[in-house]
């Protein structure tokens, strides 16, 4: 079996940037990813990626892809890594479609939406419940909807919906919304948003589609008639497959300043790691660092 210099897991900003650097270092490498763009592809407006004063998530993803296509990169798309095993000097990467071997690996698998874990969530997914306001939002024109969450992504979803939906309830479990002040001001100014702080969602009900949600606060439980539920309660790292790689309490992969994990030859970058801030530009920068570290590791070990 062929042994690659490097396998990059994930093709968001971290994975794609690592790929560009690896290609320029002429490494023999492979990229394995479920999707392209990661969370960037699902983002609305981006105004803090240097060089672009304003760009949308899908547009920036397209730019990333163009950059990737400039090099002849072996990309396995729609493929999910299930296991990572290191024995002696070789790391085996096992996916739902095949097995590969490499000297080094960069884990850049990012994060995914956290689920609510309440009755009705699974049954009504795509039947009024969605994790992607950017994608499915337009289908809720003139409908009353609920956004579950109280952070930046919840506010972002609510703001996107102000232009589409009839009325939006923000169901926030904490005392007040947390995040960008600019977004919060826009939410307050919107005519069709009701913020319900200190409220928790208990269940989603309906027939074929969502018809209502059950929420509760300290005074008791009540039902809200809504036809859409947008879940925006944060993210969890896609790190389950990396069993022997050391993680923090949030299941983020611990890395050092050179993006090295506890396993020599296994590096990690971006939102899947314990890097303090989760930003597109930081993920991209971390991806380049990880690729350069992997390159240095290969040279040092004379692979």
């Amino acid at each position, binding site marked *: 079996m062929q042994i690659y210099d490097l396998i990059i897991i994930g093709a968001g900003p971290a994975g794609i940037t690592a790929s560009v650097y690896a290609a320029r270092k002429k490494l023999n490498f492979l990229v394995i990813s479920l*999707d392209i763009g990661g969370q960037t592809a699902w983002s609305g407006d981006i105004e803090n990626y240097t060089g672009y004063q304003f760009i949308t998530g899908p547009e920036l993803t397209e730019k990333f892809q163009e950059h990737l296509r400039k090099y002849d990169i072996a990309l396995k798309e729609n493929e999910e890594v299930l296991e990572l095993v290191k024995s002696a000097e070789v790391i085996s990467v096992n996916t739902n479609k095949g097995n590969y071997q490499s000297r080094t690996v960069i884990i850049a698998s990012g994060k995914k939406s956290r689920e609510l874990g309440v009755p009705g969530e699974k049954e009504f997914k795509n039947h009024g419940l969605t994790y992607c306001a950017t994608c499915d939002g*337009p*289908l809720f024109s003139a409908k009353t909807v609920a956004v579950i969450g109280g952070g930046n992504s919840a506010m972002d979803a609510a703001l996107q919906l102000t232009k589409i939906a009839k009325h939006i309830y923000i169901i926030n479990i904490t005392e007040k919304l947390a995040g960008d002040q600019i977004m919060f001001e826009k939410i307050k100014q919107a005519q069709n948003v009701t913020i319900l702080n200190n409220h928790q969602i208990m269940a989603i009900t309906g027939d074929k589609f969502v018809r209502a949600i059950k929420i509760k606060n300290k005074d008791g439980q009540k039902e809200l008639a809504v036809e859409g539920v947008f879940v925006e309660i944060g993210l969890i790292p896609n790190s389950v497959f990396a069993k022997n790689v050391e993680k923090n309490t949030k299941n983020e992969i611990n890395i050092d300043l050179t993006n090295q994990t506890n396993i020599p030859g296994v590096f990690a970058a971006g939102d899947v790691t314990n890097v303090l801030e989760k930003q597109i530009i930081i993920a991209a920068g971390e991806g380049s660092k990880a690729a350069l570290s992997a390159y240095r590791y290969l040279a040092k070990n004379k692979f």
Partner: protein
Amino acid sequence: MAKSVIVYSTPSCPWCIRLKQFLKENNVLFSDRDVAADKPAADEMVKKSGQMGVPVLDIEGEIIVGFDKDKIKQLLGL
């Protein structure tokens, strides 16, 4: 003869963009229905697929929800 292919999508959904890109790369002609702008198309999509997630692909009456590359390849003989 080429199969009749309809894509129901929204302009901002990443999987819709990738799906359409994939069809174009494979020279598949398709009718593109933007369910964000076209309410009747949105209703049609929900009726056909029984759900509200995009993209939805209609290949000669066979409905595929999401960008299921393998199934699309199989149905279109790619």
